[in-house]
């Protein structure tokens, strides 16, 4: 089989893709792109789509509805892009389009030609009429490489991916020798995006060099960090790019079989991937003798059953083999002896999705993005206290400040930034003094956090760092597989100590104990989960020690978060005579009327839910939160009232 024949076969697929495109353009009817990935669906995209369909048929307007993957702008879901070629406007992106708004858009824009500016997020192209989305930092500061086509193509239509240059990387790889492909990846400096940052090219070379012919390639899509959903979005929005990367990887290392390990909690991603595999096989882009070459490659999807630890590569392999998902001691590394004892390359979804463009555009181009030791881009799911949460892809080396304050719009409600937790439960909490840290593998590790797979939680002044550590430890402690002593029992001790500190029962020696135990767990654990589980404790102890000390020594929670250590009270000066708003909302009838017909809180009954504070009319703003609870003034219940409440309690 010559290179010419390979090219010719692929060219025929490209021609078909062009033909379909032209056909669509011929009938110049509006196209409505609706973001229908998990996040879109959760915020009501199904209803939006239905409303569009109904409104279009009611008004007998001809338009195409195309479900697309995620753009990453979670704050604006359900997102809709309308391309109305005859209206004289460029394609327009609309935000938060619920069913009602969808009907309005059909009536006003598609029928009346008025683009309804109040729902517009921006135009998708530069123009003189409507501000373009690229004028907003949330769009312009991003650099999309892996997520370039996410949200712009129908993930279920392979021809749309091909039209964007898809599978050309695979063809280029197949024209070259496997070693040359590995050279390209090695030169690009691509590092594993799963968290550890191991050089991908080196991993492939080791796998290539093993003498056993039967090898495996595994795509690790067992994304489990709380608040992280990068892999899910990529799988749902552009599964073909991953498949292309997988095929290139398999060709380079000499594997013919691959397993995509995806969480069962991602039903949409599983479906999209399965569909993509099928349509790629139909076009001979996967399967036996790809595009007529001698390269055979099959991909199957394996659904993980919900254990966080299965994201660890050895546990993941155990899980595929039908065993309990428990990590194994390395070496041997999977790349030497992995699935069923065969050499196995395990790469993250984002790593594999980066590969096609590296092959196509070359390692030099890839190196122009990012930093010297961490080239390329980083994808974060930025959640927590930011104005514009969602998926963000930025060049490595961008500072945390740019990411949080410029790209994501900073902290809402005029609150202060307090900390950012990077790398999920195994990462660290960095304070504001680290905001100028560049985001790359080495700088973050040096700062005590880690790149992780891309979870980022931003916290404002209302977050208690002891409570945050407790939260993450509670997670890792539950998700420990129970195999090794340090992780199984050690994390439980850490959690217990943090728990008692947040309850005001902390002891003088607790901080020392937390530190030494954390250090031992890090040094002694068997796998990455245990080795990194104490990171949130260690970093918050390092940067927010005074907060721990306040909890232990003064029984005070500076962020007014830990329930046992706070109290609510009503300022009698500010409370309005006769106002009863707080009384009705108190779930435990703790609010009573004072002699002066104002309100006060019975501290013994109060469960500190904070409802009274949130309902107190802003013009009075009479409810206050204090820590330690003793600071709340004690107001006696009038005697007759007391009796009554006792009666009702009985």
């Amino acid at each position: 089989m010559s290179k010419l024949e390979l090219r010719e076969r692929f060219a025929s697929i490209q021609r078909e893709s062009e033909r379909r495109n032209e056909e669509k353009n011929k009938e110049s009817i509006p196209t409505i792109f609706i973001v229908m990935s998990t996040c879109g669906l959760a915020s009501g995209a199904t209803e939006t789509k239905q409303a569009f369909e109904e409104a279009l048929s009611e008004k007998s307007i001809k338009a195409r509805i195309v479900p697309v993957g995620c753009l990453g702008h979670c704050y604006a879901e359900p997102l809709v892009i309308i391309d109305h070629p005859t209206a004289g406007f460029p394609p327009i992106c609309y935000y938060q389009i619920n069913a009602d708004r969808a009907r309005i858009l059909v009536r006003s824009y598609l029928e009346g030609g008025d683009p309804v500016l109040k729902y517009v997020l921006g135009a998708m192209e530069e123009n003189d009429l409507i501000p373009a989305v690229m004028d907003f930092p949330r769009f312009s500061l991003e650099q999309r490489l892996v997520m370039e086509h996410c949200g712009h193509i129908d993930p279920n239509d392979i021809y749309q991916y091909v039209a964007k240059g898809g599978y050309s990387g695979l063809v280029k790889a197949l024209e070259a020798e496997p070693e040359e492909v590995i050279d390209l990846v090695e030169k690009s400096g691509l590092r594993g995006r799963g968290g550890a940052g191991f050089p991908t090219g080196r991993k492939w070379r080791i796998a290539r060099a093993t003498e056993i012919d039967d090898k495996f390639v595994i795509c690790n899509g067992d994304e489990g960090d709380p608040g992280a959903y990068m892999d899910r979005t990529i799988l749902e929005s552009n599964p073909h790019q991953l498949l292309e990367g997988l095929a290139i990887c398999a060709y380079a290392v000499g594997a013919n079989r691959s397993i995509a390990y995806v969480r069962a909690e991602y039903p949409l991603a599983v479906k999209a991937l399965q569909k993509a595999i099928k349509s790629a096989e139909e076009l001979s882009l996967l399967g036996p003798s790809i595009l007529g070459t001698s390269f055979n490659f099959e991909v199957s999807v394996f659904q993980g059953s919900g254990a966080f630890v299965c994201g660890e590569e050895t546990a993941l392999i155990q899980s595929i083999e039908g065993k309990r998902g428990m990590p194994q001691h390395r070496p041997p590394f999977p790349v030497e002896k992995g699935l069923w004892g065969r050499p196995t390359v395990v790469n993250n979804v984002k790593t594999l999705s980066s590969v096609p463009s590296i092959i196509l555009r070359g390692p030099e181009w890839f190196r122009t993005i990012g930093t010297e030791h961490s080239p390329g881009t980083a994808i974060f799911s930025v959640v927590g206290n930011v104005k514009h949460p969602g998926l963000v892809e930025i060049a490595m080396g961008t500072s945390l400040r740019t990411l949080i304050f410029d790209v994501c719009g900073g902290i809402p409600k005029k609150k202060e930034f307090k900390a950012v937790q990077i790398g999920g439960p195994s990462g660290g909490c960095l304070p504001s003094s680290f905001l100028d840290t560049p985001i790359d593998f080495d700088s973050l590790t040096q700062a005590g956090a880690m790149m992780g797979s891309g979870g980022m939680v931003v916290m404002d002044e209302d977050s208690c760092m002891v409570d945050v550590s407790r939260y993450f430890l509670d997670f890792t402690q539950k998700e420990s597989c129970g195999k090794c002593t340090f992780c199984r029992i050690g994390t439980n001790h850490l959690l217990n100590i943090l728990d008692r500190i947040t309850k005001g029962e902390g002891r003088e020696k607790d901080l020392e104990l937390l530190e030494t135990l954390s250090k031992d767990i890090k040094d002694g654990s068997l796998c990455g989960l245990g080795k990194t589980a104490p990171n949130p404790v260690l970093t918050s102890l390092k940067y927010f020690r005074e907060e721990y000390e306040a909890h232990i020594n003064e029984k005070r929670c500076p962020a007014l978060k830990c329930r046992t250590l706070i109290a609510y009270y009503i300022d009698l000066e500010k409370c309005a005579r006769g106002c009863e708003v707080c009384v009705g909302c108190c779930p435990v009838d703790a609010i009573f009327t004072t002699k002066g017909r104002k309100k006060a809180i019975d501290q013994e009954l109060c469960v500190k839910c904070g409802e009274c504070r949130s309902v107190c009319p802003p013009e009075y703003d009479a409810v206050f939160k204090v820590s330690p609870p003793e600071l709340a003034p004690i107001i006696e219940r009038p005697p007759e009232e007391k009796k009554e409440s006792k009666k009702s309690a009985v």
Partner: protein
Amino acid sequence: MIKLIVDDKEIKTEAGNSLLQACLENGIFIPNLCFIKTRQHPHASCRLCFVEIDGLDRPVTACTEKVREGLVVKTDTPTVRRLQRTAFKLLMSGHPCEAKVCPVKGSCQLIRIAKHLKVGLNPKPLEYIDREVEEEVDLTFFTYYPYRCVLCGKCVYVCREKNGHNLLTFAQRGFDTVIGFFGSAEPVDLPCHGCLACATICPTGALIPKPELIKEAKMNP
């Protein structure tokens, strides 16, 4: 034969052996609970057999290290002892020692390890944690005492070796992990033939054979 130096003493062992086995064979005790010398891929879960090797910047588990000619090993550095003592205390925090009634007090590995590490059998400065496990699980040929179990996994391994498939395995996860028994709803109906490999290898008295069975075994050796 391979020569290596452990605690300034030259020892010899066969190639392919693990460092832990080499030391144990040569009378150098390194605390361990989950090590089985015939096991191809060490379980490495008890995290007690730490040693320091010249040239490596941090302690490693001796069971997972293969011996190499000229290896220089230290088994009692402060870092090694720190990790071992912490691991031991962690285990003891979920294993309240009841020496008076313990059926294996004479042969309990934990006591031997405590003596070696020169620590008590209490978890101080850590606290005891209530594991909220069953007091005992009655099985045909033996009784399982979950709170004595340190989850070394030896029983799981030998059962598989002996019977070709496991009748027991790890169940639950995280801190709640226990040994669970396959087979049927009632543990007494477990298709176990009473080879007692599991109970024999248990280092902490969590699996205790029933007395009548021991008698029987003695009568028909």
